[in-house]
């Protein structure tokens, strides 16, 4: 089963890469057919990615959410899921062109991690693992989409070819509103992550909050996005300023994910 997962993972990487190229071709050639093909390919990649994760779970005999490789591939899966949801919900195909490189980068990072399956240490043998990590995947995916939307927002004014953009990218106001929706989805799920993590930590270690670096940086990320929401209410902060702030928020997300594991080891060193 793990061999199947390995093969599927490689195919998924190739499909995401192909989808990214098709998205770029769509923007360059401005042909709707390319956009439809790119979205279809991303959907196919997502379906196979899901199958790969299921195979990994069956092969490992547990939820595939417990080490760097598993979290990285799940993060890419979450970003793919949320971006597809936003593409279909808001009829916003161009979003895929900006999300695909980020998905490809994250799955590339996953490919560089060890794929070895290890048995779980006693602290990780808990039903809370599924709630805690799966909500983190959705949160990170949503923040990834908000980052992509911020980039689109910031690039929009600099782009030429107005006619093409006007028909494929929502206006500034709607773009800002969609970005707000993705941040709110991310913040809600990050709150679920922190609360479920606290409940789990209380059961496992007798302390629901111990200022572990991962906990602390999750809180920092939460505060940054909470500040984004407050700033957005203030006059003059919607639009460009909010987009910059959302992009900074995603830097915090990435530091929480990669930076903390690299520079600030703690009780989350396996994640």
């Amino acid at each position, binding site marked *: 089963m793990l061999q199947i997962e390995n093969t599927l993972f490689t195919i998924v990487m190739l499909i995401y890469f192909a989808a990214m190229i098709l998205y770029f071709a769509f923007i360059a050639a401005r042909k709707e057919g390319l956009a439809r093909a790119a979205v279809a390919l991303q959907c196919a990649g997502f379906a196979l990615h899901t199958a790969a994760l299921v195979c990994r779970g069956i092969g490992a005999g547990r939820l595939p959410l417990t080490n760097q490789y598993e979290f990285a591939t799940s993060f890419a899966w979450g970003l793919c899921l949320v971006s597809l949801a936003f593409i279909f919900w808001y009829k916003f195909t161009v979003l895929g062109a900006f999300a695909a490189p980020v998905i490809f980068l994250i799955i590339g990072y996953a490919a560089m991690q060890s794929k070895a399956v290890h048995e779980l240490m006693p602290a990780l043998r808990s039903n809370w693992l599924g709630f805690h990590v799966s909500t983190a995947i959705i949160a990170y995916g949503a923040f990834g989409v908000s980052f992509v939307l911020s980039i689109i927002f910031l690039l929009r004014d600099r782009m030429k070819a107005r006619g093409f953009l006007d028909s494929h990218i929502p206006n500034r106001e709607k773009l800002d509103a969609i970005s707000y929706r993705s941040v709110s989805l991310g913040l809600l799920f990050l709150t679920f992550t922190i609360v479920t993590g606290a409940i789990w930590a209380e059961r496992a270690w007798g302390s629901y909050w111990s200022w572990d670096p991962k906990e602390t940086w999750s*809180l920092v990320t939460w505060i940054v996005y909470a500040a984004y929401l407050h700033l957005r209410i203030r006059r003059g902060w919607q639009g460009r300023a909010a987009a910059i702030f959302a992009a900074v928020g995603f830097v915090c997300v990435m530091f929480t994910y990669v930076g903390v594991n690299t520079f600030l080891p703690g009780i989350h060193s396996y994640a």
Partner: protein
Amino acid sequence: MRFAIILLVVLALACSVGSLVTQGQSYAWYAQRYSERTAALILALHLDDAFHSWWFILINAFLCVNLLLCNLLRLPSLIARTRAEADPRAILAGKGAVSVENVAAPEPVFQRLRMPKPAEAETEDGTPALVSSKNRAGLWGAWVCHLGILLLIVGFSLGQMTQKQYAVYGVPGQTRPVGDTGCAVSIDDFDIGLRADDTVEQYTARITVLGPDGQSESAEISVNNPARLFGMKFYQNSTGWAATVRVTEGGEPLQEEILCAGEYLQVADKPDLVIDFNAFYPDYVQRAGAMPETASGQLNNPGYLYSVYYQEQMIGMNVLMAGETLTIDDYAVTFSEPQPYTMIQIKEDHFTGVALAGGLVTMLGLLLAFYVQPARVWAIRQEDGRWTLRGESRKGGAIFRDQFLRAAGVKDGENIAEKEE
């Protein structure tokens, strides 16, 4: 609002600093890691214990006051807004964020926007109107979220101030007191469940807690499965190695104790002489120039790292292998019968529930704030019998306007009297 944003930014910075500076170290450690000047600065600013420092507590106190005042000040207007959200007169007095004129049949638009069945009303000048509003609870999202955060901070702070924590460690058969509670923990059994590949699956301890009045309660605890006994929570926290230390004097048995690694023994008739059991290596290996280590978890080559103190001065440190004897004057010391000990953490925190409730209330608040979007839609009959439809959603913004226009069957720039919010 501005003060709240400043507080959030300052709190984020404070947390970042607290995570970047290694916590709980000494001046010498910081001086070696950074420089003497930096070490002095770290200690002066309490960055070595940032999350318990006076300035961190002050930031949180300001945040609590800010949240409390924000909620108190907003409460009257929030109640008024909630009432106004469903009041036909108040709704009809508004201009709406978006409007569409000359609609023949407004009811399908209400349905497409998933609004409740509209109520019949009249404008101030007696013109017939239809009014519908939904999701008023969404107005309370931020307020509920603030309340949750307030509960969380208060619960956490009170817990930190009042909680009692104890640690007890020992091997099966031993009974250890639980701090000053008057209770004692008897370790009935301790099992390390191993998988076929020798990795640990679970640590399980069977304990009996003896109360101050002679009553007792028993439970099995394992990692992720604590037990509540005598109002305290007992956690299977960690494990290590213990060994039996025997001391003879002139060949005669003098003393025998089970020591956990990290514990020490004072020689019974010579208290100035102390044997410290530093560490245990079940499969001892010593590589040149390296620290002692164990090759596996199996008891293949047990080695006991010890140090000897006399009148508080260290007089020796070495590794004693199984069967070897350490001789100090007339005393002979042996280590034997290594066995795993369990460390049980005991905690009494009456405010965990408050903090947990705070977390749940915060989640509820965010759900209300983000996914329960208040909206009101109304239609006013024109003189020609057709209707002018208006709509407003405080949080929906551009997306609500899009939905409204789609529901009304019009496109941008076509028969729209759209107004900016």
